[in-house]
């Protein structure tokens, strides 16, 4: 069943600022450079508490991050990563400027994450097992909850509007844009910080390993010989407002599509009907045709199943001239942050006229149509689409356009 509710109920949003910190580096320029160079920013895992051989997208320097005193009680890897992310590309300053204009109570925060600060809970259990006295600092209840990230971002920015954490695995920070769209449309706030942060931790490393979804080597999205994902960590943020209230020279979020697979927790619905439905809903809400999309950033996790189903859907829905790729070979699969990171990659494609290739892909799988590209391409990108198809069958698709 297609979910084609009225486009006018979902007016476009202006993207006033956007940034990301990933394994490729801090900020937009570092990410763009890594994609132009087609660099796999993956290293051997050294984050887990016990050895696990896998390649990961690790953000360097998190151990050296010192949070201000007001946030010390929420200190954990995920929040240090969030802190770095918030200060990339002067993002926090852009939020402060907007907050001065509209008031703190009119700035909302909606963030996506899969594991949030679970590493702090893991550490407390290790302390208990080792007979170490539980570190009182680790007992902060606000730290041991999924919404710790949303709370951290609110306090770090001084925002006092609505705050929500969306946790739908890999689609979390893509769905967060839809929440922001509803809040702005209802007039609950005038600007929303949309973000996503997920960090490498035992739960995620050993969990995906137990599911046998992790590649022993650097991941190869859409490759005929792909063997699974490479996990990554990242923090990404965007500041959005109603397009009607914003200057014309900023990019737009034009449409969001959402659906569910209703199939299986860890395998996609094989015919791709629900991911196609999400794509078509996003296009309908953006009032665009498939032929209007110049660049598609695929979910492209490099699992045998996702890439086959997604490639077949892309070949079915889009013209051969579409340039599609997965960038998870560069950053790793950043889970709850994938939505926002790959949204930023779409914005960069529009802004800089460069459609990235598929890092890590050597030989395209037979299911790929002409759209999926190994190499990057200099080309005008008027509209870009990002796919985020989450664990548990939760799908979100975003469509962005350039300044109007």
């Amino acid at each position: 069943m297609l979910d084609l509710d009225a486009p006018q109920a979902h007016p476009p949003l202006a993207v006033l600022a956007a940034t990301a910190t990933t394994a490729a580096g801090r900020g937009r320029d570092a990410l763009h450079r890594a994609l132009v160079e087609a660099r796999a920013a993956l290293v051997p895992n050294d984050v887990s508490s016990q050895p696990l051989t896998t390649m990961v997208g690790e953000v360097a320097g998190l151990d050296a991050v010192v949070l201000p005193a007001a946030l010390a009680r929420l200190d954990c890897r995920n929040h240090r990563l969030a802190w770095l992310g918030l200060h990339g590309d002067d993002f926090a300053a852009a939020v402060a400027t907007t907050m001065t204009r509209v008031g703190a109570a009119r700035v909302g925060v909606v963030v996506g994450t899969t594991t949030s600060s679970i590493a702090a809970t893991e550490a407390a259990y290790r302390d208990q097992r080792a007979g170490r006295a539980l570190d009182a600092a680790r007992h902060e209840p606000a730290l041991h909850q999924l919404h710790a990230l949303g709370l951290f971002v609110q306090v770090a920015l001084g925002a006092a509007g609505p705050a929500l954490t969306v946790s739908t695995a890999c689609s979390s920070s893509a769905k967060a844009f839809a929440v922001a769209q509803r809040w702005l449309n209802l007039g609950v706030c005038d600007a929303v910080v949309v973000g996503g942060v997920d960090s490498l931790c035992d739960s995620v490393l050993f969990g995906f390993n137990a599911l046998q979804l992790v590649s022993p080597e650097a991941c190869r999205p859409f490759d005929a010989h792909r063997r699974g994902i490479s996990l990554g960590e990242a923090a990404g943020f965007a500041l959005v407002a109603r397009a009607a209230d914003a200057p014309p020279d900023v990019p737009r979020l034009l449409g969001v599509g959402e659906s569910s697979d209703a199939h299986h927790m860890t395998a996609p619905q094989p015919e791709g009907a629900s991911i196609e439905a999400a794509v078509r809903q996003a296009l309908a809400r953006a009032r665009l045709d498939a032929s209007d999309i110049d660049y598609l950033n695929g979910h492209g996790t490099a699992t045998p199943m996702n890439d086959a189903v997604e490639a077949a859907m892309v070949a079915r829905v889009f013209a051969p001239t579409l340039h599609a790729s997965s960038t998870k070979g560069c950053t790793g699969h950043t889970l709850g942050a994938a939505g926002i990171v790959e949204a930023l990659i779409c914005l960069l494609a529009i802004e800089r006229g460069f459609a990235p290739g598929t890092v890590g892909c050597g030989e395209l799988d037979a299911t790929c149509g002409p759209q999926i590209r190994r190499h990057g391409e200099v080309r005008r990108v008027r509209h870009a689409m990002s796919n985020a198809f989450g664990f548990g069958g939760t799908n979100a698709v975003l469509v962005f356009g350039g300044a109007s």
Partner: protein
Amino acid sequence: MTPVDVAVQGIAYWSPTLPGWTHARTWLRGEGRPLAEPAPLPSPAILGVAERRRAPESARIALHVAAQAVEAAGVDARALRSVFASAHGDLAITHDTCTTLARAPHELSPIRFMNSVHNAVAGHWGAATGSTRASTAVAAGPASFAMGLFEAAAQVVTVDEPVLLVGYETEPVGLTGALTGARTGNVGPCAVAMLLGPRRAREGYVAAWLRMRWVQAGAAPVSTSRDVDPTVFAAWQPLLAALAQVDLPARASIRAVIHPLELFVQGTMFS
């Protein structure tokens, strides 16, 4: 902000000593008592026979109330978008996972990990009903249910269709009790479900009208102090108490506050 108006089309509730909306409603009206002995966890028929026995506590209580609310409303589950809200998710699974990771991380069970993600319950609902409509899983600390309620209502007015809202919290196990500050008190594991529909609901039963306003304007950011997490179940009671009262005489509109929302509940006889 214009107030958001929705219809409440179906309500369901479960806790060990108030194992159903009939029980809870009677108690909230001051007319009855909770059960002396806790009821066993429900085994929702909507899950397959094998699934319902091995499903975690969160899935059993959440899917049980979800199915009951949908049935009470008289709508088709497959057609529904859904919002699942929980502050802490399944704490027994968190305890199990962290215990295994501390002891022997390579022994972490794939099924346990799969059930540990916040949207696992939503995934079970989708697989059980076959619904391909959008579904989400959210949290907002002590305001988890309020924000889930607002999200569901926002979706109702945006898509002009009914949306299923489910709130649930589970019994803390092991260290998770002390770490999260979650207190279930004598309420135990708990779940509530509401089928929210457009103000002009076109199909199904309407139990009450609900208007919500945002009251947080000007509030300071939430503190990071060491306060114990307020009992999240207390957050549901004002709304449930209001819904329990709506058909009593001379009750035109009942006000309830679940921070950061101000709610007005009106019975259908006064519409």
